[in-house]
């Protein structure tokens, strides 16, 4: 139960809004953080916390692509496929995943580590092609960096190539000019 585990956090979230229902997406995130996806049990519990009916939670949860109602791999590779990334070769990135991990769109590797999805614009068009892995952005992908990201994720669970506070073009480059 979320309530037992996160009582304080839940109360804090609900306190931000004058109307309880506003806390719905934040609580769905909380449930997703807890289990890796949002289960029916979690939706029912959230409904109770926010005084909603389960269908009201369900309709909201299914509207948003970031709420996973099914289990996904430990690393959710979300490759941007919108035009701006496609101009920079994002389709190739999807191919890399397919050949290197043997999974197609919407599939998860048998070891449960990676799930691949092509997603729409993630607001990183200047640094295309790019992908988001769980919370982190990886930009200006090349085959080399991509290999390293996969290897690091497998080995360390994270990768230093993830993008920090974003700025492009980077300031030093500008100063050199």
């Amino acid at each position: 139960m979320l309530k037992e585990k996160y009582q304080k956090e839940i109360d804090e979230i609900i306190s931000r809004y004058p109307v309880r229902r506003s806390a719905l997406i934040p609580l769905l995130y909380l449930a997703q953080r807890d289990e890796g996806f949002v289960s029916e049990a979690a939706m029912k519990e959230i409904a109770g916390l926010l005084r909603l009916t389960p269908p009201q939670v369900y309709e909201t949860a299914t509207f948003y692509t970031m709420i996973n109602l099914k289990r996904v791999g430990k690393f959710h590779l979300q490759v941007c496929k919108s035009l701006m990334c496609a101009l920079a070769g994002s389709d190739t990135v999807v191919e890399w995943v397919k050949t290197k991990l043997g999974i197609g769109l919407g599939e998860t590797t048998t070891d449960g580590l990676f799930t691949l999805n092509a997603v729409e614009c993630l607001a990183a068009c200047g640094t295309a092609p790019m992908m988001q892995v769980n919370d982190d952005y990886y930009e200006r992908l090349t085959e080399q960096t991509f290999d390293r990201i996969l290897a690091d994720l497998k080995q360390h669970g994270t990768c230093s190539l993830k993008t920090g506070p974003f700025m492009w073009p980077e300031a030093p480059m500008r100063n050199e000019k």
Partner: protein
Amino acid sequence: MPKHELILLKNMMEPGYTGSLHDYERAGGYQALRKVVGKVPPAGVTGMVMKSGLRGRGGAGFPTGLKWNFLPKDYIGPKYLCCNADESEPGTFKDRQLIERDPHQILEGILLACYAIGSETAYIYIRGEFVLGAKILEQAIAEARTAGYIGSNILGAGITVNVWVHRGAGAYICGEETALLESLEGKRGLPRFKPPFPATNGLYNKPTVVNNIETLANLPHIVVRGPEWFASIGSPPKSTGTRVFCVSGHVKQPGNYEVPMGVTFRELIYEHAGGMRSDKSLKAFIPGGASAPFLTPNHLDVKLDFESVAAAGSMLGSGGVTVMEEGTDIVWAALRLMEFFYHESCGKCSPCREGSSWLVQTMRRIVAKRGRMEDLETLVDLCKNIEGRTVCAFGEAEVAPIMSTLKHWRSEYVTLIQEAEAANLIKLEPAVRH
């Protein structure tokens, strides 16, 4: 040195600038707030913004001061400020940089706006994928709270403003201001029909202002340096100030470039973004995010201001400039954008919901060389039937790529169809006419 004076990106261009409260204050931050709180009446701040000519940077370009002025004057009760950080318009990535590199500039803007409109609560609606941005904003809010800029009795003037970060969860439509409000209320992000407008019936049905991040970031500068100064930048009187343009696609140096409004696309693309990435010349560009109709090399000397771009048959929109080189398959490009709009159509109203699925399927067929000549007429017809008949502006947006590419590059569509016919591929005969 950049050719033009930077305003919004100035701090972050300084080597070593971290975006912390300390750095921001050292760069002159929160002076605007100190200047007005308890000294200038709220209406005075609105007056400055009106005078500055500041227009919304989210896409529609609505005058910010006027938007604030629409709030009912004698209203007693909660009012809300919602900061639109849902940055989802393909081709746009400026807000992300403003948030992650200089969060206090935005917070100060939020505080000024709240002060002006008399709101005690601001929600920053940030797209769910910006996990880092949300974290940075939350840290900045905590810093500002400790320093007495956020919370109750701000700067000892008895004013209360609380700021909360609210993450979206993956829906382009939530950048539309009423869909944003619905989403913030914990519902599906479906746009509301207007009127009534958020100014009177917004968040929780209370008077609400929704402003874009870049719009808010301009406020401290307008207050500190004066509306006249701001109004003198760019291409007055209708397009004042700078804009952070996001250049993507086939250029040497894609990225965010802050220039005064009114510079030409040629300058932005060839001087700032370093020109085309190879020896291939420019074939097409989108001037203001995926919702803006495509333009051609003939439009390179169009000025980057609201009116000029509109006169050229497109829109300045969110400032996302995407450049395509010669050799780019324009029909494929239009299809890619259509795929985006199909995926993101919320499904509320019939023309958009059904139209996007229809358009995308027809486009897929044409690109897959299974098109027919009459498809072109159908495409145009469908686009016209969507335009102006939807609940929100998504309808206009989704037809822009097809309408504009058909206008400028019809021959490419025709070629694809002719190839289809020549190859004598299976003709898709309608199974049933209905």
